[in-house]
Each structure stands twice: as structure tokens, then as C-alpha cells.
């Protein structure tokens, strides 16, 4: 190793907890141990990553409180240090990381809560694309409508959870949120995030609507997606469901070419 390589190796080691301040003595004037001052080269990076995680998981940070969040962030940074040279989307593995540590913190719903945060962030940062006018389907005949395939805005993100967290997630976004104890239901749930303009919209979806959106996103035709809904909920108001999807503002294109395999 050249002296430059040695310097970068040791300082990187200090920053990532692989080396201690005393190991830097070799690089110092008079080979003096730098003591606690050297920790600034570790703490600054950890602080930047913690701030990025707090910014990307604002509601999670409010729900668990600062001490818990800081501990969680530090453990995550140790296990999943940033690789990209930008912290904008840092923390993509945090929901799974929280789940894996569920036996330590005992909050088995927390990973799903983080998934909702991630869904919001994904919608917030997704590419821009022009939306189709809600009236676009009006000119289609019945047959074309049945075979139509829908393209969704890149921000459209469906998050499925094993807990019902929608109410808590909404409350945590409000000013003056308090960490008072709540009862959470272990119940399958789904929330759709999308960004029709510059603001992210979020909506809790009933099971039948979730199946409808998932089917369309898989490339199924409108007719196939409707059949899936009716299989789950025979009484579903299909015209209302379709109108709701069109009005929500996340459709960018409708392809009416035939070729439906169903």
C-alpha cells in the first residue's frame, strides 16, 4: 500500500467502525494518537445517514420516538451502509430490517408501517408523466372497453400490510401527533399511493379494489380485472369502481388493441 492508500484505508475504517482512533496515530504529526477528536470522521457520516432516514421515514420517527428511532437508524446504518452517492432514497431495506429484528423490539407491525412510509416516498420521487383525461374511456365502445389495458402513472404504488395501520399512518402525518398507546388490528390491508400532480395521494383500498388494481397492473384487460373483482365480491359496483379509478388521476394511457388471452 502507498501512503495515500494507507490513509484512505484507515480513515474509511474509522468511519465504518472497522478501525479505532488509535489506529490513526500512524498518520498523525509526531505519530500522536488523535483521541476522541477522530470520532468526528465517524459521527458526521452517521449523523448524515440518520438525518436522511428521519427525512425518509418521518411518520415512523414520530410513532416510535426519537430514542428508539436513533437506535434503529444506527443499527440499520451498520448493517446497510449507503452504496449510492446520494442519500435521497436511502433506507429501502428498513422495513425488512425492522421485521427481522421483531423478536428484539416486539413491535411486529412496525415493518409494515415502514412499508407505508416507503410507498409514500416512492410515489413522491417517481418520474413525472402526463395523465390521461378522465373522459378518455367515454368514447370507447363496450367491446373496446372490455379489452382495454391501462398504463399507470410511475408513482402508483400499492402497499399490502398484515396490520391495519391506515389510521395510525394518517394521524402520524398531522401536527401535534402524540405517542399515546393504541390498539392495532392484525388484519390484511392495502394502501395505494400515487402522485397526480406534485402532492402524493393515499387511499386505503378494500380487498376487491386491491385485486382490481393488481390485475390491471399485471397487464390484464379491464374485462379480466372486473371478472377477478366479481369472483371476490359478487355484489361489487363495477361502474362505480371503474369511474373511481379513472377519476383518481393515475392513468397515463389506455391500450385498446385486442389480444387478451382470457
Amino acid at each position, binding site marked *: 500500500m*502507498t*501512503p*495515500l*492508500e494507507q*490513509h*484512505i*484505508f484507515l*480513515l*474509511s475504517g474509522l*468511519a*465504518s467502525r472497522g478501525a479505532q482512533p488509535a489506529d*490513526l496515530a500512524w*498518520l*498523525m*504529526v509526531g505519530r500522536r494518537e*488523535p483521541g*476522541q*477528536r*477522530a470520532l*468526528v*470522521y465517524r459521527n*458526521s*457520516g452517521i449523523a*448524515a*445517514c440518520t438525518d*436522511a432516514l428521519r427525512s425518509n421515514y418521518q411518520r415512523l420517527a414520530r410513532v416510535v420516538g426519537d430514542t428508539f428511532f436513533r437506535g434503529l437508524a444506527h443499527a440499520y446504518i451498520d448493517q446497510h*451502509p*449507503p*452504496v*449510492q*452517492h*446520494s*442519500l*435521497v*432514497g436511502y433506507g429501502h431495506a428498513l422495513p425488512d430490517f425492522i421485521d427481522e429484528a421483531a423478536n428484539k423490539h416486539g413491535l411486529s407491525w412496525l415493518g409494515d408501517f415502514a412499508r407505508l412510509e416507503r410507498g409514500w416516498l416512492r410515489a*413522491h*420521487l*417517481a*418520474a*413525472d*408523466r402526463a395523465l390521461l383525461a378522465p373522459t378518455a374511456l367515454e368514447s370507447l365502445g363496450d367491446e373496446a372497453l372490455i379489452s382495454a389495458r391501462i398504463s399507470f402513472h*410511475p*408513482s402508483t404504488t400499492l402497499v399490502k400490510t398484515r396490520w391495519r395501520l391506515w389510521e395510525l399512518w394518517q394521524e402520524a402525518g398531522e401536527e401535534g401527533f402524540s405517542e399515546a398507546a393504541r390498539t392495532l388490528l392484525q388484519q390484511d390491508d392495502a394502501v395505494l399511493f400515487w*402522485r397526480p400532480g*406534485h*402532492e402524493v395521494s393515499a387511499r386505503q383500498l378494500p380487498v376487491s379494489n386491491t385485486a382490481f388494481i393488481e390485475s390491471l397492473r399485471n397487464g390484464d384487460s379491464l374485462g379480466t380485472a372486473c371478472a377477478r373483482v366479481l369472483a371476490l365480491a359478487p355484489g361489487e359496483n363495477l361502474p362505480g369502481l371503474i369511474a373511481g379509478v379513472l377519476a383518481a388521476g393515475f392513468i397515463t394511457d389506455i391500450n385498446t388493441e385486442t389480444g387478451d388471452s382470457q
Partner: protein
Amino acid sequence: MPPAPSLPLHAGLGLKPDHYRAALETGCDGLWFEVHPENYMVDGGPRLAWLEALRANRALSFHGVGASLGGLDPFNLDHLSRLKQLIGRYEPEQISEHATFSAHEGRYHADLLPLPRTHEALSHLSDRIDMFQSSLGRRILIENPTNYLPFTSELDEPDFLVTVARTSGCGLLMDLNNIWISAANVGVDPYAYVRAIPGELVGEIHVAGHSPDPVLGGRFLIDSHDEPVSGGVWHLLKFALERWGPKPVLIERDAKIPPFEDLMSERSRAETLILRQKQMAHDAA
């Protein structure tokens, strides 16, 4: 390297998301903005739209923190490609980076780590800046680092930076707060430092606030950017502008963000100092 467009000889502000609307609405003459391009390395969404709206009426500076110019890893291709896309879209008047490294063996440290001031590092950094500038097709400025520890060195910092600039063809972004902190932490003379930098290499000046280390106290200063610019740094700015002539000056603030008006009043103080130098340069001509 083609001559880059330059920032106006006025004071600018680091742009904060909390201030997007106020920044768009202010009618202040000469005000320009600086951003970390890394915060805009996204596919879409409101922050890109805000920056576009602001860019329509304001000069813009990209101050990168993620290139790891002094590092040993190859340049991060995703970072470089996104930076080029942003430069293509926003056409900033100026692009700057740091004379430091921030990644090693694939891990991004999210910090600006110092290089040793040796002839080996000088040659390495100059080559990397040359490659970076060639890749962007633009001349950049590099910023002097904050010093926290007395690393062994073969050159003093002004000599190191001036030689890197002359070798690679880059310019210098002189962060006076970093010099002030280095003075406290490793015992350099901030005024001698400024005197040793030729004004023609300086394309921009940064001033910011710092704070004492929470454990070690006021003898160890941290480059926290969470306070107003200190009295000492204002004095050093006045001295530097007298020495170097009028330059674009940026007020940096990255934490404990105050109302926009508070930053504008600090900006106005810097603007007054620049104007005085412009007037003197005009009178001398």
C-alpha cells in the same frame, strides 16, 4: 476546457425545501441559489419542478458532495450519469466539488474525508479532477476541506490547493468557515491562509456557522452549518474580499433552518461587502 459561465458577483443562498415558495417569490436583485445536486438525483416529483421554476429567473450553482474526487474507487457511474442529466436540464452557471474523498470499496461514507497533503495525493487528486472535468465537459471549482486533525503533510493547504488548481485547470471555492475551523482545530493562521491564495483562482466563497463539539467544547469546532455566520468569519470575509476582489459569496445553512428572511438578512450583509469591493474596483479603473 471551455470557459464556464460564472455566477453573478452577488451573494447567494443555499436553497432549502422549506424555502422554495419564498425563494420563488422574492424580488431581490442579484440573488442566486446553490444546491447539492445529490438531493435532486430523483426520477421526478415536486423538488425537480421547484428547481426548474426557480432556475427560470435565478442563477444556479451545483455544489456536489458525492463525487469522491480524492477517492481510490472508480467514479460512481450512477452518480456521474445523474449529475450529467441534471447539468443538461438545469444548465448551472457553476459546478463545484470538494478536495476530499467520501467513498471507499463501494461504501459511501456520507462525509467529506480529508486527503493527506502529500505529493502523491496532489498528483492523484489533480488526475481525478482532470478526468471528472473531461467527463462533464466543464471546468469545476474545488472546495478546501475542514481540518479536524493534524495529519502529517508535505505541503501546506494553500500550496496544495493552488498546485492542484494549476495542474488540473480547476478553480477554487474558498470556504472561509472551514479555514476558521481549521485555525481553531489545527492551528493555522486564517489570514495568512487567505493571503496565500491568488484571487484569480477563486470562483466562489462560502461562509457558514459552526459550533463547539458537544463533548470536547469550544477548543474543537465542528462544521455544523447550524448557526448564523460567526463574527470571526464575517471579518475574514471582509479581509478576503479586499484581497481577492469581488466574488460570489454563498451563505450556507444546513441545519436548524431559520425563516427565509433571517437568511436573507445574512445574505444582505455579504452583499454589502461585495458591493463595496465592486465600487472600489470601479473607482480604481
